[in-house]
């Protein structure tokens, strides 16, 4: 009933087994022990499960692990390499997290959003982040953090051993 799933997660080759019905987020959490990505609704609405799949931010609860066989996945655990990623650092400075449950989803959404549109103003950022729910912060500090990180970040790929080119 289970099938082999082999994919690259945060730059490392990982393999596991999954029933077809196991979602990518459940696979990451239970098969690979990467519990940083969280499950909040299993409907694709809250955004807590957002991961990067082949360079694109997606809902981990709406992809089956078997669909991700052979893909490249980035999770929050792969965000900072030597210390905190500028986004993580900005979240920390701006107190853009309280309970921290929605945070990995926001980080992965934001890192891709800033790659795709590096120069959003605050209103655009609010809209861009409106697909991720937070119940603690009221969002202002999150928008502030992403805006500050955007200023610091040149368009750059996600940290990972394969992406040495640095140029987009």
């Amino acid at each position, binding site marked *: *009933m289970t*099938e082999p799933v082999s994919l690259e997660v945060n730059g490392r080759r990982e393999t596991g087994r999954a*029933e*077809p*019905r196991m*979602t990518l987020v*459940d696979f990451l959490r239970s098969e690979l022990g990467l519990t940083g990505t969280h499950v909040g609704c*299993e*409907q*694709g609405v809250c*955004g807590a499960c*957002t991961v990067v*799949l082949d360079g*694109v*931010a*997606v*809902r981990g*609860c*709406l*992809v*089956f692990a*078997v*669909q991700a066989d052979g893909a490249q996945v980035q999770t929050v655990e792969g965000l900072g390499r030597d210390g905190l990623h500028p986004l993580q650092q900005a979240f920390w400075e701006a107190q853009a997290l309280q309970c921290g449950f929605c945070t990995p989803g926001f980080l992965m*959404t934001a890192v891709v*959003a800033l790659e795709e549109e590096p120069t959003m103003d605050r209103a655009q950022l609010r*809209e*861009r982040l*409106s*697909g991720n729910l937070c119940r603690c912060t009221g969002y202002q500090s999150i928008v502030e953090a992403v805006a500050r990180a955007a200023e610091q970040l040149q368009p750059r790929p996600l940290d990972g051993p394969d992406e040495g080119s640095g140029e987009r």
Partner: protein
Amino acid sequence: MKTAPFRYVRAETVEQALAALVSDEDARVLAGGQSLVPIMALRLSTPSVLVDITRCTELRSHGWDGPDLTVGAAVTDRVLERDPEVGRGHPLLARTLSLIAHPEIRARGTLCGSLAHADPAAELPALLLASDGHVLVRGPEGSRSIAAEQFFTGPFSPALQPGELVVGARVPAPRRTSGWSVEELSRRRGDFAIVGVVCVLDVGDDDRCSRARLSLFGVASTPVRARPAEQLLVGSDLQDDALDAAAAVCFDGVEVLGDEVHASAAYRRRAGTALVRRALGSAARLATGSRHD
């Protein structure tokens, strides 16, 4: 919830997909999964087999056939959104796509998947209807092309025979001289529409409306054309009085459905009429503007 168990088939070709669909009457197609997986996760849908078509090469392309954009069944909303040719050649589609949910959903969701899912509150079926588009289908009996008018037969009820697969869609673009708009009303950005409208207005050499398509979504059991309104618009000068008159009758003959949670039928009519008026205004300005360029 976790979904009920199913077998997973990854099709490399359309033939393989069709064979898998035919093999089990409870088989369903998996493309983006952004509509299907949430209902499976509530165990409201329990297919026995999911046929993943996202790797079928022949379904992954989109392109132009004259004024029509053809979109393969595995093409995601995101790919279309990010294609500058689509932005230039079919700005109505580009704008409609931007209203759908959020980027993370559009990253996986497919245009054809939305059509096949046939949610009466979805934007793309209404767009297809307003564009006089077609759904391209292949099945055990061969290929066929189904007009949008015939495709949406009821809520979540596309006119597909058992074993048939949507392989693509033909979405005609508005003419350069036409006006268009798409508007929707929802409680929050990205939610399903409480009421929405896709509007395409063609203008003739006499500066009068030669053809009108007004497709409402979120209000009935399928996307529905506001024909009485369309009829008033055709031949009109598309000025305020004409638009007012059309908006006033846009729900005539439409069986508007409401619900307890989001909005009553009465609200959808009332707010929808204002929404339609706004949409007509935008489309008319675009049409007359381009006439005088």
